[in-house]
């Protein structure tokens, strides 16, 4: 008995040893390419290190973060006429004339630049940031993420519902769906860039002019009002298949008898969707949504290739700080901020997935 036990534990021991041996390469690699660089990014983010410069770099504490995230909101007072001492109004419109933002925003120790203005309860406010580009990159990326993920989910769901019916050529359809997904983003960015050309040599200008929406000279890429929408449309096109395939996999797990039961109970198609299909899909939708959100938050290829330095995403901002400015400390700090934002979403995801599991 004792002998057998000994043999058993010996076997266990060799099994353990083998397990650790087999895991070593994976964890060694991940240490070198993920954990170590991540730690070094945290450390570098508190220095003013620059690659090309020969100067010694020093510890600057949270200064990089302060500069990246420095935000302020100031009220804009109405301009006062120096001679009469009266408040000024616009001669034509009769609207109040406000002080210029540049005179109100603080200049020392770091200068704040205007990001945008808004009115609230009859007063005018200005938002200032110490790094206008970064704050814009963050808000653009968040906006891009929300809009594209919502659109992708709704459209992906529609496509999945259509594909879930039986029809001839379903196999071909499923294969074709993988086309946008398989094309490298760098390649599809160039293709869409060409379709978005600012005259009628581009596909969209031809269509827009035919539909009477523009004169055929619309600059989708350089016009700030359409830049983000161009990015969203490419991302939505590329990602609908992924969404649709995930949702389709979920749809096919719903037992057919349940629909029959619903039909017997007299539930219409729409009722069936909301009270049967949607609750069933909830866990898979949660996973798909979060996957996509995390992906969209780190969007890089689209922004860097098509918009370059006209407008940044968080990732492309980091890239330009690193490569063009060789500002390692600064770009590290922005990396850390991205990491934190994504971490928050991930924790949220794990909590949500856990909640779904418990409900089961």
């Amino acid at each position, binding site marked *: 008995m004792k002998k057998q036990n000994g043999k058993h534990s010996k076997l266990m021991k060799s*099994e353990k040893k083998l397990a650790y041996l087999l895991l070593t390469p994976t964890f060694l690699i991940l240490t070198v*390419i993920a954990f170590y660089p991540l730690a070094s990014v945290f450390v570098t983010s508190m220095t003013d290190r620059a690659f090309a410069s020969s100067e010694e770099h020093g510890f600057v504490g949270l200064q990089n973060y302060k500069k990246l995230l420095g935000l302020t909101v100031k009220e804009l007072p109405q301009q006062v006429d120096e001679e009469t001492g009266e408040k000024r109004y616009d001669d034509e419109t009769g609207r109040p004339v406000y002080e210029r933002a540049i005179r109100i925003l603080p200049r020392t120790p770091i200068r704040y630049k205007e990001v945008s203005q808004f009115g609230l309860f009859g007063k005018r406010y200005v938002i200032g940031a110490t790094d206008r580009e970064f704050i814009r990159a963050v808000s653009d990326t968040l906006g891009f993420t929300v809009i594209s993920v919502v659109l992708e989910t709704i459209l992906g769901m529609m496509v999945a519902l259509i594909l879930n019916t039986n029809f001839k050529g379903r196999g071909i359809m499923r*294969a074709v769906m993988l086309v946008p997904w398989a094309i490298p983003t760098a390649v599809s960015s*160039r*293709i869409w860039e060409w379709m978005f050309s600012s005259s009628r040599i581009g596909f969209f200008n031809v269509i827009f002019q035919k539909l009477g929406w523009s004169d055929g000279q619309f600059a989708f890429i350089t016009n700030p009002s359409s830049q983000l929408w161009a990015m969203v449309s490419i991302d939505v096109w590329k990602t609908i298949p992924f969404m649709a395939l995930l949702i389709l996999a979920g749809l096919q797990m719903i037992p057919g008898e349940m629909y029959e039961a619903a039909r017997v109970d007299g539930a219409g198609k729409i009722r069936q969707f909301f009270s049967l299909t949607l609750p069933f899909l909830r866990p898979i939708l949660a996973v798909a949504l979060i996957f996509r959100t995390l992906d969209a938050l780190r969007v890089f290829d689209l922004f860097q290739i098509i918009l370059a330095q006209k407008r940044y995403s968080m990732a492309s901002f980091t890239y330009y700080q690193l490569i063009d400015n060789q500002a390692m400390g600064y770009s*590290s700090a922005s990396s850390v901020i991205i990491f934190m934002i994504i971490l928050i979403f991930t924790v949220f995801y794990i909590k949500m997935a856990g909640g779904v599991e418990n409900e089961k």
Partner: protein
Amino acid sequence: MKNKKILKIISKTLFYLLLLLILIEMIFPFYWAINSSFKTEAQLMMTPATMIPRDPDTLKLSITLQNFKAVWHNEDFVRGLGNSAIVSLTVTLLSLCFGSFAAFAFGKLRFRFKNASLYVILAMTMFPQVSVLTGLYVVIRTLNISAIPGMIFTYLLFTLPFTVWVLTNFFKGLPDSLLQAAQVDGATPFQSFYRILLPLTAPALVTTGLLAFIQAWNEYLFALTFTSFEPTARTVPVVLALFSGEVAYQQPFGEIMAAAIIVTLPLLVLVFIFQKKIVEGLTSGAVKG
């Protein structure tokens, strides 16, 4: 009765119209690239742009292969194809090798901290590459690693965790009795791993390998950053993104589109052959997780 039949026909027609619309939406950009790649510079500049390559004067169909020829003689592009192939294939092989080791351990062996380390792997599948960009750039530049090994090594960051995760699920699904039977026959656990279990995982290896290959072939952020000081190591997405003509201001979109098609075709062939496997691989993580 008759009305019902007509209604059925109408709804069927509408359904197929909807399908057609989706189909067009999915492939149209790729079609536009094909269309443009067969046009000459003059045809590309026609307004309004034509849906098929047409002669500017007679408006008859006229196709040119000059863009493809130009791309084929473009040194950077051809070198890029080679670089991409080397990088993607090596990354795929490495992640399958190390990934199946780790997955076997996770799926079939007993050891301490198993769940904790598996969670680390799962978390790594969502790791944002951009957050370590600066750190990796420093490592690569200070150690003086050249760009191609640098890319191969760093691409494992996104291929390896995914491979381990999917293969672990697969190994877990294989019956324990196989391993025990092999052990009774006197095989060491490692022998039973590569003689008995590994051949059984072949389908999963194909799936994860394909996905790893496609990810590596399409990667852009690391490639752009690490080849910034070594232009000859550029992979195809980078070459394509930086493609510029001899005239600095004018982008040769005909050639870019031809290059885009050449880059995409091998992927599309893979996708059509292994369609089922890819869909399985894409959804398996999410459906099970």
